[in-house]
C-alpha cells in the first residue's frame, strides 16, 4: 500500500499515457467513445422498445445507462488483463509494485466512462427525462463500480500472465454475464423460477446503484447501497489478496 502511494505519480502518468494512446490513434477516438454507446442504444431501442413498453418507460435512457456501465466493466477487465503482459519488460527488470498497471487501467476506464456520460446527459435532456439532484450521487456510484472492477481486474490479470487463453475465456464469460445482468432488459421479464440467478448476480447490484440516479432520479435505497458497498469491498479484498499471493510469480511467467 505504502509503495503504491509512493508511485502515485507513476499511476497518473500511466493513466495519461493510456488515454493519449486511445485518443491519438484515431481522430475519431473521442467521438467513437461517445458514438458507440449511442448507436448501440438506437439499435436496442428500435428492436426492443415495443417489447418492453409495458415494463419500462424511457427505454433509451435505461438501455444507455446499462451499456455505459457494461462497457466500462468489460473493457476495463480485458484491458487490465493485458496491462501486465504489455509491460513485461518493466516487470522483469524494475522493482515496481506490479499492481500499478491494473490500477492505472481501471482509472483510465473511469475517465473514459466520464467522457461517455456526456452523450447520456444529452439524451436525458433531449428526451425530456427529469434531471434530478440524485444525479449528484453518480460519483459515488462510479467509485463503487471502479473498486468492484479493480477487484476483478486484480484477480484476473495475473491469471492472464500464467495462461494465455484466459483472456479469451474471460471474454466468453463476460458475454454470458452480459445476458445474465439486466443491462438492456428489465428484471420483470425473467421467469420467476430463474430470477434468483439474476438477483444474486453481484454485478447487478453495482449496476443498479449506477442506474438508479439516472433512470429513476433517486438515490439508491440504503439496503441496495449497503449491498453494493459489500459487493465492491469483497471483490476488492479477494482481488487484492489473490494479486498479492501471485505477484511474486509474475516475472517468471511473463
Amino acid at each position, binding site marked *: 500500500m505504502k509503495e503504491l502511494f509512493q508511485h502515485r*505519480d507513476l499511476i497518473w502518468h500511466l493513466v495519461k499515457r493510456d488515454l493519449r494512446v486511445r485518443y491519438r490513434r484515431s481522430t475519431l477516438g473521442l467521438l467513437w467513445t461517445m458514438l458507440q454507446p449511442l448507436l448501440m442504444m438506437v439499435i436496442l431501442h428500435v428492436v426492443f422498445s415495443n417489447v418492453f413498453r409495458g415494463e419500462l418507460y424511457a427505454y433509451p435512457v435505461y438501455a444507455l445507462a446499462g451499456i455505459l456501465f457494461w462497457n466500462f466493466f468489460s473493457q476495463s477487465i480485458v484491458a487490465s488483463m493485458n496491462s501486465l503482459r504489455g509491460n513485461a*519488460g518493466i516487470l522483469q527488470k*524494475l522493482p515496481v509494485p506490479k499492481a500499478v498497471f491494473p490500477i492505472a487501467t481501471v482509472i483510465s476506464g473511469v475517465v473514459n466512462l466520464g467522457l461517455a456520460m456526456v452523450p447520456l446527459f444529452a439524451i436525458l435532456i433531449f428526451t425530456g427525462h427529469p434531471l434530478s439532484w440524485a444525479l449528484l450521487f453518480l460519483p459515488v456510484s462510479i467509485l463503487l463500480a471502479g473498486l468492484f472492477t479493480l477487484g476483478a481486474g486484480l484477480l484476473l490479470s495475473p491469471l492472464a500472465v500464467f*495462461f494465455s*487463453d484466459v483472456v479469451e475465456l474471460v471474454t466468453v464469460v463476460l458475454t454470458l454475464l452480459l445476458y445474465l445482468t439486466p443491462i438492456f432488459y428489465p428484471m420483470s421479464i425473467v421467469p420467476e423460477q430463474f430470477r434468483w440467478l439474476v438477483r444474486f448476480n453481484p454485478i447487478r447490484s453495482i449496476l443498479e446503484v449506477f442506474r438508479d440516479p439516472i433512470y429513476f432520479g433517486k438515490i439508491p435505497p440504503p439496503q441496495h447501497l449497503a449491498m453494493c458497498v459489500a459487493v465492491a469491498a469483497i471483490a476488492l479484498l479477494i482481488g487484492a489478496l489473490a494479486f498479492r499471493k501471485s505477484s511474486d510469480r509474475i516475472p517468471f511467467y511473463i
Partner: protein
Amino acid sequence: MSEPIIDLDGVSLCYRLAKQRIPSFKEYALHWVRGALTYEQLWALRDVTLRVGRGERIGIVGRNGAGKSTLLKVISRVLTPTQGRCVVRGRVAPMLELGTGFDFELTGRENVYLSGMLLGHSRRAIDAKYDGIVEFSGVGDFIRSPVRNYSSGMLARLAFSILTAWVPDVLVLDEAIAVGDVHFVRRCHERIEELSAAGTTLLLVSHAPDMILAFCERCLWLEAGRLVADGAPDEVLTRYEHSQGAQAGTAAPVPDSTQPPDEPTASS
C-alpha cells in the same frame, strides 16, 4: 560492519521450465487431471549467503549463465527467491538492461519523467533534478526528440544520469556503463565515486577485469549458481581467469570499454 545493507541467507532461485510448454489454461487442466505436469528445474542460484555492508563496492564475475544477473534481480527485488531469505535495507537503483522502462515513442524529456517515476520518484522530485539529469547525460538538444532516434550510447548516458541523480542505498549495474564514450565513462566513474562517498553500496557485474579492479574492493565469483569465491578483487580475478583459461584453453575475450563516441542514428 554494522547492520548489513544486503543480507542474503541461503538464497536459492529456481526457474521452473515446463517440459512441454503449457500456454493455456485448458491444457493445464488436462495435464493436471492426467497427473502429467512435469517441470524441468533450473536452479539459477544455489544456497547463496552474502552480507554486504553500507558503502561497500562489490564486483561480480562469472561465466554466462552462472547466475550473476539473477543475483542482481533478487537484490533489486525483481525476483523473489524460491528458498532462503533476502533482506535489502533501503532504496535500490537497478540498471539491469539498457533502456529498461524507456518508451521509445516518447521524447527524452518524457522518458526522464517516466523512468524517474518507475524508480519511485515523484513528479516534483524529478522536476528538481531535471536540469541536472539532462546536463549530465550530455544528450543536448536530443532531449526533445523521441528516444527511438538515440544511439545506444545516448540511451546508456540518459539512463545512467536518471538512475544516479538521487543517492540510492544500493546501485546495481549490469555491464551497463561500458557503452558510452571515453569522456562519459570517466564522468560515470566520477559519479560513482561521489555516490560511494555518500554511502551508496555498489554492485557491479562486468566481464572487464579492469572495471572491477578500478572500482571494487571486494569481488564475488559465481559458478553454476553457487558463490565459489568472495574476496579481494585481484585474488578472485586471478583465480577466475585461471579457471577460464583451463576450461576454454584461451582467455575469455575482454570487452573494450573505450569505444569511439557514438553518433546519433538520426537527426531531429
